């Protein structure tokens, strides 16, 4: 059983909490998904509507482990300060560290990411870095003390699935001992199943559930897909071939010509 900073999770589906049509649908979708980890963020609060307070009660009622993010941060200082604020509010050492480097793709700034990870881990944070599938960056994040990596499948919110299969397979093969969570880009349950079939340890899904026509139904579909993919990986998928291989035995076939 893989451990995420010492925590065993029975579900390998992690969910984001943004972009749902309503708080009630968010709650129902998270419950149906079976996820034990949900990502949350921090935004400006107003004394007039206290929207954040209402959201926080919903999350607490769900009883999930929260994974605060530093979404939208574009510098090391911004990410580190946001991390401090998140720990103060959420009371967890867990942090999904994002340092965004490019606006069109929301690609991580991997240089800033490594630097911020090093600072935060020295301060006791347990960092889940949102990174690319780059092997060298992955190694440097692990050198910095990261014990989980979150490589992207494709750009955040794009729903395009696993863009660089070769790179993701290489990442899995090079670092067999570290939990890897595919974060970003998964659009449909088959993408999630594929990630699990490749040996990834979990997937983090937000938009694909929240923006589905029926988010609760889609949460259930993702839950089943992640389970199926994990079972398939454990069962050992067959080797692929370039040519056909008859599945029905040829020996003993009648001569009818």
């Amino acid at each position, binding site marked *: 059983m893989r451990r995420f900073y010492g925590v065993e999770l029975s579900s390998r589906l992690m969910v984001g909490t943004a972009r749902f049509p309503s708080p009630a649908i968010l709650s129902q979708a998270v419950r149906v998904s079976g996820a034990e980890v949900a990502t949350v963020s921090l935004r400006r609060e107003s004394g007039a509507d*206290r929207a954040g*307070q209402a959201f926080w009660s919903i999350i607490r009622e769900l009883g999930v482990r929260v994974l605060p993010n530093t979404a939208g941060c574009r510098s090391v200082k911004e990410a580190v300060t946001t991390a401090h*604020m998140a720990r103060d509010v959420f009371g967890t050492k867990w942090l999904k560290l994002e340092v965004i480097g490019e606006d069109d793709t929301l690609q991580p700034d991997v240089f800033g990411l490594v630097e911020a990870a090093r600072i935060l881990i020295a301060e006791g944070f347990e960092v889940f870095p949102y990174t690319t599938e780059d092997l060298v960056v992955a190694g440097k994040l692990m050198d910095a003390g990261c014990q989980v990596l979150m490589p992207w499948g494709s750009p*955040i*919110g794009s729903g395009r699935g696993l863009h660089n299969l070769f790179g993701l397979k290489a990442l899995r093969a090079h670092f067999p001992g570290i939990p890897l969570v595919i974060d970003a880009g998964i659009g449909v349950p088959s993408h999630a199943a594929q990630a699990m079939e490749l040996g990834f340890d979990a997937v983090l899904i937000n938009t694909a559930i929240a923006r589905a026509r029926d988010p609760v139904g889609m949460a259930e579909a993702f839950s089943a897909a992640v389970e199926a993919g994990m079972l398939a990986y454990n069962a050992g998928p067959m080797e692929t071939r370039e040519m056909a291989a008859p599945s029905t035995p040829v020996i003993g076939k009648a001569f009818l010509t």
Partner: protein
Amino acid sequence: MKIIVNGDVHDVPAAASLAGALEQLGLGGAVVATALNGEFVASAARGKVTLSEGDRIEVLAPMQGG
């Protein structure tokens, strides 16, 4: 004196504490994180932090995130 909270100008008594300013803004007892002029201020320290004219305060709360 005037301070800037989440980008908006607010009036608070001279030498108000950060905790006092939050109370006045209707955020006393709220689950929030604070930063003063770009630097994090822990919730436990807010009562000891005295504000000055023109200070910039960020008050953040839990919000939906991916």
